[in-house]
């Protein structure tokens, strides 16, 4: 199974990286850009013969909560596809 996890800054939490990039874009000649937010994407493959869809979902969710995202300041979503 191929998993893609999206981790983004929580709403209301400062995203200094996004803010700095946004601020510098006009100097680089890109105008009219706003709302820049920078997050992470994590791709991984799970190989387990008899993992049900729900079990896989639960496992990835736990992985996100415990390791891949920092739930205090980040939100996450993920997709799972057969591969």
């Amino acid at each position, binding site marked *: 199974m191929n998993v893609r996890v999206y981790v983004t800054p929580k709403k*209301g*939490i*400062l995203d200094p990286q996004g803010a*700095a990039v946004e601020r510098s874009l006009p100097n680089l000649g890109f105008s009219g850009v706003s709302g820049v937010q920078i997050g992470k994407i994590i791709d991984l493959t799970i190989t387990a013969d008899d993992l049900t869809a729900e079990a896989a979902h639960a496992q990835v969710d736990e992985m996100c909560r415990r390791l891949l995202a*920092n739930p*205090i*300041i980040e939100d996450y979503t993920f997709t799972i596809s057969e591969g």
Partner: protein
Amino acid sequence: MSGEQYVNRRADVEAAVKLGLTADEYAHICKIQGGEPTYVELAIYSLMWSEHCSYKHSRPILGRFPTSGPRILQGPGENAGIIDVGDGWAVAMKVESHNHPSAVEPFQGAATGVGGIVRDIFTMGARPCVSMDSLRFGELTEPRQRFLLDGVVGGIAHYGNCLGIPTIGGEIYFEPSYEGNCLVNAMSAGMIRTDGIVRAIASGVGNHVVLIGSKTGRDGIGGASVLASQEFDETLEEKRPSVQVGDPFTEKKLIEACLELIHRKLVVSMQDLGAAGLTSSSSEMSSKGFVGLDIHADRVPLREADMEPWEIMISESQERMLAIVTEQQIADVREVCERWDLDCTVIGAVTDSKMLRIWWHGERVADIPARRLADESPVIRTPSVKPDYIVDEPVAVDDAGYPPPNDLGAALTQLLAAPNIASKRWAFEQYDYIVQANTVQIPGGDAAVLRIKDSLRGIAFSNDCNGRHCYLDPYRGAKAAVAEAARNLACAGALPVAVTDCLNFGNPEKGEIYWQFEQAVEGIAEACEALDTPVVSGNVSFYNESFGQAIYPTPMIGMLGIYEDVSVHIDDAFKDEGDVIVLLGAEAAWVDGSEYQKIAYGKVEGRVPDVDLQLEVELQSKIRAAIEARLLRSAHDCAEGGLAVALAECCIASGSNGGAQFADPEAPRGGRSGRWLGADVALGSAAAVAGAAQRPDLALFGEAPSRVIVTVAAELLGPLDEVLGGLPHRVLGRVTGTDLRCTMGGKELFTVPVGELHSAYESLPERL
């Protein structure tokens, strides 16, 4: 949105209680306000009168500290204390706790802790030149504690490294009592010309109030009152949304811009926004200046559009500064901020009303007498109660309770590997300790040493507190912390001159905690008086409790030392084969509260020895005299782990160069000596020693204050004797070979290769 709803909505006592105020405090507020306060007013009072901002439990006790002296240019009461260090230079310094935020989110909590304390330094016009971090966690065997340690160290590194401020020292201890409440005390110091100091005092009716730096979001709303002033319990999770994220990049720009504003005298005064944000900075500035301030909350640049005026007033968004600027200079101020890509917004004006007035789209939503808000917060003294666990006598060591170990060499390596003693290289190698090109001694030794550019002078810093000792006897433990901090500076050759302190305690509403607090303050005060090191700044952190369990009382001492000629400095590394090892101070040691007691016997009990301050002063001045006369080749304080661990540390450090270990720790080549140096030492006979030290293991590993190991070239032993005079001292042995060998009364106690000592000492990373 009109301000009307905020003016008309009056807050009752219930609302006050929800915000953490008592009914009495609410009544007092009504009296000051001449009626029920508005919501905005109440929110402001609740924060300003929180423990964190008002020091209501500690203020009367802190008055005990000595705070002045010929070198002290600024004592407590400003953003940082300032000490004259000579040649027209002064040092601004302060320490601050960020314990609760770090327990919630260790990386950001620690990072913003560094950011906050650094702002306190450059607010005064000083260029930050040093960071230190004093940390406490639960035992490393707990995964959660390793997570906290990793995050906290990472956060300090992230923020300090980005700012380009060297983090050159600190301490890390692990004790079960910190499991629910880690301690993160960040200390910062900066250099300033003695004639360039600015104070956070608003003045000049009509002058602009200018907000510089980041936009305001909902960061840390309720942080000061909710996070710092209440115990942790099950509701911890709910308090999370207020986490602050640090932006060191913006802070770096702020440092440069603000220092330029101050040096060019473009601002009347300046104040950082810390706990309680705009509320505390504006009320303190107006109160100190006997003026009023009008703040238009609707002019504050926001990160989130829909914020309410009270949220704006108490937001703790980081990387913001408040400045008072005249009309003539506002254009220049804007130019500087623009050059550094920083927001710069006029949000109000200085008035002659002596009132702090908050406006919201033209309506007045708060109107508070500034001085009464800032300075009339309630004072609370809890009747103190001596806790039951305190004993008056040291432990009677018998073979039943303390069976002697059969392998003293193994006991030594076990102690060297103990997390409280083992090398903290893992942590300090994450810190840039060399930026700014002033670092003379890097982390890992007794003190951090810096030179002052274009001067022969130098400065040194140390950080100390043994919480276990303070638990067993807060008075003696706190006194010992001051003595040790000064001793560490003396061992590097510096003259201790001033203290900043961070007093970390449990819930002050409890009599036992209040007793610990009073005792510790008394111990600090006496030691500071004896050592002539006034307290110039500090911080108090109460409510470090979880589920009713308080931390060890931890009055962290940060100390500044000075050199007239920094080139005399020495470190703790043995330098040459044949050098003579001399123990200064008494050959006495106790098991009470020692690391050995904890590691070998799993106990924390007894009564720690008291520091003899007269002896301590003599010891330190003689070490310094010997170093200034360039008689000593190394000096090292005997602290945790006693004499044996101190000797081992000197051996291990010999495999380094300039205090820095080799890139490959297994292969020390080059450097001063080309290899590790060992030592051959003989302890005094059992009859010669005091305390519990009649037993060889206790003579080796027992602890006592006022003991230092120095080395001297054999031919200089005579002159050294002369300098030391009547100070108790004894030749222990010589630097020789590549083993550490110890005997007592002619009998060998152990022989261990320094390589083995080193492996044990550097074993922390394997356990993280």
